C-alpha cells in the first residue's frame, strides 16, 4: 500500500512538473519585445500588479529630489518649478520585458511633451552603469534617465512607489509648473500604460 502511495505521488509530481513546463511564462517575446535586446532580457514572469503603500495623490505638493542622470548631470525636481511641467516615469528594472519597451516609445513623441510644455524624467532604482548599458540599446533618448540606486529607492519610497522587493512600481506622475501633482498612475507592473492615457492627462494641464 505504501509503495502504491509512493508511485501515485511520483505520477502526480511528474504530471505537475510537465504542466509547469508547458504553462510557465518562458517567452521573452510575450510582450512583443524589440529584437534590439536579443536574448538579453530577464523575464520575471507575472508579478503582483502593485506592491507598495501609496503616500501621495493628485493635489499634493511633489516632494523635491535630486538624482544623478546617466548623462552625468545632477537633476533636481525644483529646477523645473515655474518653467516646465514634469512627467516622471518610474520603471521597475532595467533589462526586463515591459520596461525595455516603454521609454523607446516616449522617445519618438517628444513633440507631444513639447506641445504641453513638459519634460520627461525616467527613473529606475538601477545603478548608473546598468542604466547606461540598457538605455544605450534604445537609441539616443531625448530625456534624462535618473538613477535612484543609492540610498536605494529613496525617491521611489518618498513617492510611495517602492515595492516590497526593492524595485519601483511602473508609475506615471504628472507635476505641474507649480510643483503640484496633477496625475498619479501606479500601473499594473505587468502592463505598459497606454500612451493615450498620458496624453489625455497632459491635455488637462492647459
Amino acid at each position, binding site marked *: 500500500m505504501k509503495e502504491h502511495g509512493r508511485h501515485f505521488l511520483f505520477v502526480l509530481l511528474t*504530471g505537475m512538473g510537465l*504542466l509547469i513546463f*508547458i504553462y510557465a511564462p518562458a517567452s521573452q*517575446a510575450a510582450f*512583443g519585445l524589440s529584437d534590439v535586446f536579443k536574448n538579453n532580457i530577464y523575464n520575471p514572469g507575472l508579478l503582483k500588479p502593485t506592491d507598495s503603500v501609496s503616500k501621495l495623490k493628485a493635489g499634493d505638493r511633489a516632494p523635491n529630489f535630486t538624482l544623478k542622470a546617466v548623462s552625468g548631470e545632477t537633476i533636481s525636481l525644483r529646477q523645473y518649478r515655474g518653467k516646465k511641467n514634469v512627467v516622471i516615469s518610474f520603471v521597475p528594472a532595467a533589462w526586463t520585458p515591459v520596461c525595455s519597451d516603454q521609454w523607446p516609445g516616449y522617445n519618438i513623441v517628444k513633440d507631444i511633451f513639447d506641445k504641453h510644455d513638459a519634460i520627461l524624467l525616467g527613473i529606475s532604482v538601477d545603478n548608473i552603469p546598468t542604466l547606461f548599458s540598457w538605455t544605450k540599446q534604445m537609441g539616443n533618448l531625448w530625456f534624462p534617465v535618473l538613477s535612484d540606486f543609492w540610498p536605494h529607492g529613496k525617491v521611489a519610497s518618498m513617492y510611495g512607489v517602492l515595492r516590497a522587493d526593492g524595485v519601483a512600481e511602473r508609475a506615471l506622475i504628472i507635476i505641474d509648473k507649480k510643483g503640484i501633482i496633477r496625475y498619479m498612475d501606479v500601473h499594473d507592473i505587468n502592463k505598459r500604460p497606454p*500612451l493615450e492615457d498620458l496624453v489625455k492627462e497632459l491635455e488637462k494641464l492647459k
Partner: protein
Amino acid sequence: MKKIIVCWLAVVLTILGVAGSARTANSPPAVGGTLPDIKLPIPNDSAEKNYLDLGFFGFGTFKIPEIKAKLVIIEIFSMYCPYCQGEAPNVNQLYAKIDDNPSLKGKIKIIGIGAGNTSYEVGTFKKKYNVPFPLFADGDYVIHKIVGEVRTPYFIGVKINTDGTNRVIYSKVGTLGGVDDFLSTLIKLSELQ
C-alpha cells in the same frame, strides 16, 4: 507494478501530447505552411480600403488572404521597439519601390500589425514615420500570440494563390537587411517573376 507503469506512461504521454500541441500553436508561421487565421478590422480610411481591395465593403473583419494581391508582406512591429522605429523609413522605401514598379504595384501589398499597441499608439507610429500602408492595432497581443509571440520587427511573406489558398514563403525576425535584396528575395520566393 505493471499497472502503475502503464498509468505513469499514459499520464506522461498525454501531457507531452498537450505540450506538443501547445508549443506548435505558439510557433511563428513556418515557411511552406499556411498562415494562421488572423482577423483584422476593415479600415475606416477609404484609401486603405482601396489599397487592400477586399472585394467587399462595410464594417467588420477580414482575413489576410482576402486582400487582393499575389503576395502580402506582414510586418509585426511595435511603436515602442527601437528597431521598428529605425526600420520604418526602409519599409516605406519598400512600399515606394513596389508602388513605382507597374509590374509589382497591386500584386505585392504590405500591412503592419502593432503587437501590444493600441489604435492610438499605432496611429502615432503611422503619423511619426508617414507610413503609407495600413497598420492595425493588436492591443491585447491576440494576434501576437497567434504568430508565436515573435520579437519585433518580424516579417512574414504570404503568397496568395488564385484559388484563395495561401503559403508562407518568408518568416523571419529582424530588419529587412537591405530593401532591394529583401524585395528581390521575396519576388523569387513567391515566383512572381
